[in-house]
C-alpha cells in the first residue's frame, strides 16, 4: 500500500448528484496526472437510500479500490424528508456520515455539510472521541448555505469539491475546465462562484491539522476515463457490431443503454424487445441475415436465452452475448457483484453444446476481449460470451487515449460473397452446401439470405450439408465432430496466433500462486504486489479464457507452484472446479478463498487469506469470506 494515495469518498442520498460530481472530480484528478480508479456503492434499499462513490488516485498505477479510504465528504441525505419514516430509517440525513466511519483510515479527513447534518447530531456519533482515537481530522462546513447563497441547494456538491480541493492543496484549474465543458452558462456561473468561495473560505479560515495532500503524478500521454461497460461498448463498435437487442436488467443495462445511445448515431440498430428470449433470438436473426449482432443480460435474463443460444450453436450462427452477473440465485441482490454464474454460462443449453466464454479482468481487457469475441464468433460461427459483473461494469479507470487508436474490424468472418458462391458446392435443386462435411478447421463458410446462389436451410435439428433435417447416424457423427472440432481450433489459434488473454503478475519463480478470474483480477494483482513487498514470494494469474480452457497455460502455472489459492466471488468454488475438471488433477494443490456477501474482495482480505492458508491456522477469517483448504490438507 502506498501512503501517497488519495481515496476520496463522497456520500449522500441517491438523488444528491454524487455520480456526476464524482465523475468530474475523477476526471480532474486524472487530468492532473494521477491514475484513478472509481468504485460505486449501490444502496441495497429500494427507497432511495444513501450511497457513495469512491475515487482512488495515486501517482502510480491503481487497479483496485484499495482498502478503506482516507477522505470523506459526507453531504448528508437531502432527500430524507419524510419525518414519519424516522421510526424505520432513523436519521437519514446523518447516515452518509454515520455509516461510513468504520472504513475510514487512521489520519483520515472528514468534511461534512453542517447545513444538513446537525453538529449536535454529529456529536451523538461520538465523533470527537473517535476522531481523537483514530487521528481523524474533522471539518464541518455549511455547504448548503453557501450553495443557496450563490445558486441552488443542489450545488452543495460543488461546494464540497471546493472544500476538498482546498484541504488537499489541489489546484482548481482542471475542475473549472470540466465544469465549463459540462455546464450550461446559466448554472456555470453560480457553480464557479460556489467553488471559489468554498475554496477561499477553507484556505483562509481553516486551520489544517491533517497531513493528507493531493498526490503527485504525471502522465506521458492523454488519458480517458472509462468503465468496463464503456470498454465493451467500444470493443463492439470497433468490431463493426451494428445491432443490439435487449431487455433491461441490472447490471447488463449499462452496456445496453450505451449501445443504444451510440448505434443510431453510427447507422446501427438497437431494439428493446419483449423479453430475453426474443432478445437473443433477434441477435441470431440479425446475424443470420448478415449484420454483426449482440445481445446480453444478467443471470435471470440470461437464463431465458438458453434456447436461442443453443439454436445459434446448432445453426452455427455467429453471435456475441454478454452475461453481466449479479448476486443470485433468482432475483438475488440486483446491484451486488458476484461471480456465481460461471458454470451456468459455460453449460446452459441442452446437448453437447459449446460456446466461447471470456472473462475480462480490466477495462482494457474488456475492450480487447470483446473484439476477440466478435472475431472468433464470426470466424468460427459460434456464440461467444463475455462474462463480467457489476464491479467491472461500473468501475472507471484511466486508459491512454492512444489505446483506442486502432483500425475497426467489421469483417463478417467466414461468409461468402456471391462471386464465391458461384464456385461453391450445390445440390441438384440448387441448394448451397452450407454445412459441409469436409472442412479444414471445422468451419463451413456461410451464405446470407438475398445472395444469389446461397439458398440453404438453417435448422436447430441435426442436418445434412444443405441443411435438410436428418437423423442418419453417420451424418450425425460427422456433423457433431465437425462442430466440436471448432473449439479445439479456437484454442489452437488463441495459443499460437494471439497474445495470451491471461494476465500474470508477481514473482516469476515464486512457488505459491494466487489464481483468479474476471473482475477480481485487479484486487488480486494488488494483493500479490503487497505480499511480495512484505517479503513473501507469490505470483498470480488472472484467467480470462473460460472456454476453451487454457489448458497449456494453466498446467504450466500449476506445475510451477507447490500450492495455489483460487480467489473468486462465489460460494461453490466454480472456477476451482473448472480447473480440476479441465486438467483432471491438482485437487491437492488448490485452496479456495471465497466471498459472497455482495461486496468485492479488498486487497487486504486476500493478503489475510494467504496468511491463513500458509500458516494453516484454524482461525476464522476476520472478513466475511471463506477459506476452503485443498483436498489433501
Amino acid at each position, binding site marked *: 500500500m502506498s501512503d501517497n494515495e488519495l481515496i476520496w469518498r463522497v456520500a449522500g442520498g441517491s438523488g444528491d448528484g454524487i455520480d456526476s460530481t464524482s465523475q468530474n472530480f475523477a476526471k480532474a484528478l486524472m487530468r492532473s496526472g494521477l491514475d484513478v480508479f472509481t468504485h460505486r456503492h449501490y444502496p441495497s434499499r429500494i427507497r432511495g437510500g444513501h450511497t457513495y462513490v469512491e475515487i482512488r488516485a495515486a501517482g502510480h498505477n491503481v487497479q483496485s479500490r484499495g482498502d478503506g479510504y482516507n477522505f470523506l465528504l459526507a453531504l448528508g441525505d437531502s432527500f430524507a424528508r419524510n419525518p414519519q419514516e424516522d421510526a424505520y430509517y432513523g436519521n437519514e440525513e446523518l447516515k452518509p456520515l454515520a455509516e461510513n466511519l468504520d472504513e475510514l483510515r487512521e489520519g483520515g479527513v472528514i468534511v461534512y455539510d453542517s447545513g444538513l447534518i446537525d453538529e449536535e447530531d454529529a456529536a451523538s456519533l461520538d465523533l470527537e472521541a473517535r476522531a481523537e482515537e483514530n487521528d481523524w481530522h474533522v471539518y464541518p462546513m455549511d455547504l448548503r448555505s453557501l450553495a443557496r447563497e450563490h445558486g441552488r441547494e443542489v450545488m452543495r456538491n460543488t461546494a464540497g469539491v471546493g472544500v476538498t480541493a482546498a484541504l488537499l492543496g489541489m489546484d482548481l484549474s482542471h475542475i473549472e475546465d470540466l465544469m465549463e465543458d459540462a455546464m450550461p452558462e446559466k448554472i456555470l456561473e453560480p457553480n464557479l462562484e460556489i467553488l471559489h468561495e468554498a475554496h477561499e473560505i477553507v484556505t483562509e479560515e481553516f486551520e489544517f491539522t491533517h497531513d493528507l495532500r493531493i498526490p503527485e503524478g504525471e502522465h506521458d500521454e492523454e488519458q480517458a476515463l472509462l468503465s468496463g461497460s*464503456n470498454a465493451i*461498448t*467500444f*470493443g463492439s*463498435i*470497433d468490431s*463493426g457490431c*451494428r*445491432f443490439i*437487442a435487449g431487455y433491461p436488467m441490472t447490471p447488463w443495462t449499462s452496456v445496453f443503454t450505451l449501445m443504444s445511445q451510440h448505434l*443510431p448515431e453510427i*447507422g*446501427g*440498430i*438497437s431494439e428493446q424487445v419483449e423479453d430475453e428470449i*426474443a*432478445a437473443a*433470438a*433477434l*441477435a*441470431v*436473426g*440479425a446475424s*443470420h*441475415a448478415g*449484420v*454483426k449482432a449482440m445481445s446480453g443480460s444478467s443471470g435471470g435474463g440470461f437464463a431465458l436465452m438458453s434456447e*436461442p443460444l*443453443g*439454436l445459434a450453436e446448432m*445453426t452455427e450462427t455467429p453471435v456475441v452475448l454478454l452475461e453481466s452477473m449479479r448476486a443470485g440465485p433468482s432475483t438475488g441482490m440486483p446491484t451486488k457483484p458476484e461471480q456465481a454464474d460461471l458454470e451456468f454460462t459455460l453449460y446452459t443449453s441442452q446437448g453437447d453444446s459449446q460456446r466461447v466464454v471470456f472473462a475480462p479482468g480490466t477495462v482494457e481487457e474488456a475492450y480487447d476481449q470483446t473484439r476477440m469475441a466478435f472475431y472468433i464468433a464470426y470466424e468460427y460461427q459460434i456464440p461467444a460470451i463475455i462474462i463480467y459483473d457489476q464491479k467491472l461494469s461500473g468501475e472507471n479507470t484511466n486508459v491512454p*487515449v492512444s489505446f*483506442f*487508436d*486502432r483500425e*475497426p474490424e*467489421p*469483417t*463478417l468472418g467466414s461468409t461468402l*460473397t*456471391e462471386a464465391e458462391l458461384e464456385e461453391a458446392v450445390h*445440390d*441438384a*435443386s440448387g*441448394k448451397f452446401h452450407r454445412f459441409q462435411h469436409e472442412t479444414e478447421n471445422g468451419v463451413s463458410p456461410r451464405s*446470407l*439470405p*438475398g*445472395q*444469389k*446462389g*446461397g439458398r*440453404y*436451410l*438453417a*435448422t436447430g*435439428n441435426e442436418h445434412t450439408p444443405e*441443411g*435438410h*433435417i436428418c437423423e442418419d447416424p453417420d451424418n450425425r457423427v460427422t456433423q457433431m465432430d465437425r462442430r466440436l472440432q471448432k473449439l479445439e481450433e479456437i484454442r489452437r489459434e488463441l495459443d499460437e496466433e494471439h497474445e495470451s488473454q491471461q494476465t500474470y503478475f508477481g514473482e516469476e519463480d515464486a512457488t505459491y500462486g494466487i489464481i483468479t478470474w474476471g473482475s477480481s483480477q485487479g484486487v488480486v494483482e494488488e494483493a500479490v504486489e503487497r505480499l511480495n513487498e512484505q517479503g513473501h514470494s507469490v505470483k498470480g494469474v488472472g484467467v480470462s479464457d473460460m472456454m476453451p480452457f487454457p489448458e497449456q497455460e494453466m498446467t504450466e502455472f500449476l506445475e510451477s507452484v507447490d500450492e495455489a489459492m483460487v480467489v473468486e466471488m462465489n460460494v461453490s468454488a466454480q472456477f476451482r472446479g473448472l480447473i480440476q475438471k479441465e486438467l483432471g488433477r491438482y485437487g491437492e494443490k488448490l485452496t479456495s478463498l471465497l466471498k459472497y456477501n455482495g461486496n468485492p474482495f479488498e486487497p487486504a482480505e486476500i493478503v489475510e487469506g494467504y496468511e491463513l492458508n500458509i500458516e494453516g491456522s484454524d482461525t476464522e477469517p476476520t472478513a466475511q469470506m471463506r477459506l476452503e483448504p485443498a483436498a489433501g490438507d
Partner: protein
Amino acid sequence: MSAFNAIGEERDIDRNEFTPGLEPQPTWCPGCGDFGVLKALKQALPEIGKTPDEVLTCTGIGCSGKLNSYLETYGFHTIHGRSLPVARAAKLANDGLTVIAAGGDGDGYGIGGNHFMHTARENHDITYIVFNNEVFGLTKGQTSPTSPRGHKSKTTPHGNAKSPIRPLSLALTSGATYIARTAAVNPNQAKEIIKEAIEHDGFAHIDFLTQCPTWNKDARQYVPYVDVQESDDYDFDIHNRQEAQEMMFETENALHEGTVLTGRYFVDERPSYQQEKKELGEMPTEPLAERYFDDDYEWERSYDLLERHK
C-alpha cells in the same frame, strides 16, 4: 452495387423453382392441411415476382415448422415459438428481403404468444402464417390454445375447460395491419390472401385453417367455408376497426358452431415499424447488411467517440 443480387431481380420465374428436387419429400400425413399452405405459397410467390433467393422463410417447431423444408427459399427452422423474433430481426438487418414467418397454433398463440403480440404491435413488415389445426400436431394431438372448449385429448381426458384464443381479435388489438383467415381447402383464396399479405407494408397475419386428420378427427375439414367478402350475408368495412372487430368476433364464434368463415378482416395503412424507425433516425435507410460488403464505407471507430471521457 448490391451484395444481394437476388433481391429485386427481374426475371421469369418458374413455379417449380420453389419445389425441391427429390429430397426432401414432405412427411406430412395424407390429407394434412399443411400441404395447402405449401401449395398456395408456391403459387403466390412467383405471381408477385419473388425468386427463391430473395425470400427468407422462418418457421417454428411443429408439423407446420417443416414448411421451409419443402419450400425452396432461404429457410430458418428456428425453435418452438420463436420464429417471429428471428424473422423480424432478419428484416431489420436487410429490409430488401421478403420475410415470411410461419408456425403452428401452439407455436404462435401459445409458447410464442408474447412475440405475436409484440410483433403485431410494432408492425414489422413481415408476413406471419399460423397453421391453425386446433391441436398440437407434432407431439401427437394434445390440446392447443385454439382447441375448442370440451375438446378431448390425452392431456384433457375429460374435455378442455378453457375457451380457445381468438386469433383474429388478438391480432387486431395487438396492432397487426393486415389480418385474414383462410383455409387449406380453399386454395385460390389462400393464394390471393398470401399475395396481399406479402405485398402489404406492415405486419400481415394469416390465420390459416389446416385440418389435421390424424389428431383432430372432431374438426371437419373446414368445409363448407364461406368467404365473407363474397357472401351477401356479411357486409363490413375492412378499414373500419369496429366493424372488423365485430366480424372477427362472429367468425371466431362461428367456427365452433360449425360455420367456417374466411376472408380479409382488417387492413390498415399505418406505417410499418421499419418506416417509423427510419423516420426517427433509429435505423439506416440503406439495408444494414449491405454495409459489410461496401469496401468504401468508412467505419466509425471508438477513438472518435472519446471526447466525453477525456
